[in-house]
């Protein structure tokens, strides 16, 4: 069976996670990526979920569809209040935060609030949930998303979750003392940010993907890393573990 886009995202995202660290993961592909990392190379990775859940062990085939339900809390180690979950991040205990988003711009800012004007939106999206807090308070943020031109825009209509804002130190100047988006994992490749301008740059392409293909699917001028790498394709053991987590393929497509 060939690798689906969701599987590719989950495997590449899982590789971003180290052992003995903590990850703030939303439901769907991010949670699958975290659970995969736990089983593959990070057995002591602590998964933290927005609904007030620390250290759960997701039950294969019983994947949660929200961040605050019994499937998400399965065999958790601690269940603090939701406010306290985010305060752990504000105190600096959350190493990595996974995020998605309807719009992502050249500086890694994310929009999940509105398309068009905030006051009279063309499309009112569900909203930030904890995304703004994760983007503001985790030590490192990794965006995981399908790569589509309508999604990758020069500037988001609304900055729901701060990436590097306008780059050039504007994030710390805004009072966000730590954190920021380090990587963007997409269906086409792995992206980072120029250390000075904080504009998005291509760092690696998935096997068989061309730079032109990436440019065609990106709505802004992309920088390119000095040495452009190619990502390791998902290994059989990674896919096997991942597929066992979602046998009904509710999120793996």
């Amino acid at each position, binding site marked *: 069976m060939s690798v689906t886009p969701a599987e590719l995202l989950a495997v590449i995202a899982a590789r971003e996670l180290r052992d003995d660290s903590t990850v703030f993961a939303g439901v769907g592909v991010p949670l699958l990526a975290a659970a995969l990392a736990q089983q593959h190379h990070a057995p002591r990775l602590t998964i933290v979920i927005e609904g007030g859940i620390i250290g759960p062990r997701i039950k294969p085939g019983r994947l949660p569809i*929200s961040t605050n339900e019994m499937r998400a809390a399965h065999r958790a180690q601690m269940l603090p209040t*939701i406010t306290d979950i985010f305060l752990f991040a504000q105190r600096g205990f959350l190493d990595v935060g996974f995020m998605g988003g309807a719009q992502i711009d050249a500086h890694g800012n994310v929009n999940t609030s509105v398309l068009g004007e905030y006051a009279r939106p063309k499309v009112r999206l569900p909203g930030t949930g904890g995304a703004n807090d994760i983007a503001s308070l985790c030590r490192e943020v990794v965006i995981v998303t399908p790569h589509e031109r309508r999604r990758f825009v020069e500037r988001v209509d609304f900055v729901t979750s701060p990436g590097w804002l306008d780059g050039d130190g504007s994030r710390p100047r805004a009072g966000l003392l730590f954190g920021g988006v380090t990587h963007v994992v997409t269906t086409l490749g792995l992206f980072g940010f120029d250390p000075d301008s904080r504009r998005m740059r291509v760092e690696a392409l998935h096997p068989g993907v061309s730079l032109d293909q990436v440019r065609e699917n990106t709505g802004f001028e992309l920088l390119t890393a000095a040495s452009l790498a190619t990502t390791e394709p998902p290994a059989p053991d990674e896919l096997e573990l991942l597929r066992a987590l979602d046998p009904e393929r509710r999120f793996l497509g």
Partner: protein
Amino acid sequence: MGGCLFSRTPLALVREILRQRRRGLTLARNLMCTEGEFMMVAGAAERVMTSWMSIGLPWGVSRIMRDYVEGGRVAFEEWSHLALGLRFRAAAMGVPFLPALTMLGSDLAATTGLKTVMDPYTGATVAAVPALFPDVAILHVHRADRFGNCQIDGYPHMDADIARAAATVLVTTEEIVPEEETRRHADRTVIPGFVVDALVHVPFGSFPHECYGLYEADFAHFDTYVTAIQGAGARAVEEYLDRYVYAPPSFADYLDLFGGERLAQQRRLAIELTQ
């Protein structure tokens, strides 16, 4: 409103608010779903204060929320999840604001009118999240005694802060236990009786939403509900309210619409996941 999304939502109280045809309410809840759609379509809510509203991943963006907000019939005041939590906590602590490092630099800071404050010791600038003192809090808990001392199992969400923050606190409970039971497990109590104004015994009081350890949310019910909305929009919700809110004279009659078999099954699923 206590709970979170479709967990421990005080639906028995929401149902009664709708039956009393209340109007012009501002709904403050960290994550909102069907209860928010009910309030919008019934005309009970003119404003929602939340960080997120829809139902869940499988059901996409709430069409009801989109129609009412994009159409300008309901105001959507968006705060970050932590910021809304801190608004309740500030009120619970009896202070006018709490300092925080969130929402800074984002467009949410502008749309909410978030102000900053300078730390008088270091000179650092931090966000000042304003306290929110609700007129009424509605909560659903696992157990309480006749004095209103409440205990919650599993994730506590923001209920304890909301109870301290609000001027009037209404609570429904799955179980009313003897005073001695509370005293035997005093370290499980999260809301003291002197904070609670009214307490009602309502088993399955948040069904078809979930109650940790007691019953899982009825996802099949959500499927039917959302499918109907995809067809008929707000009309589908009106029909739903006629059937589930206005028609059944009592909450027991309401539960009968789901049937004992379904309630028992959801209980089995909850036990499976938590034991």
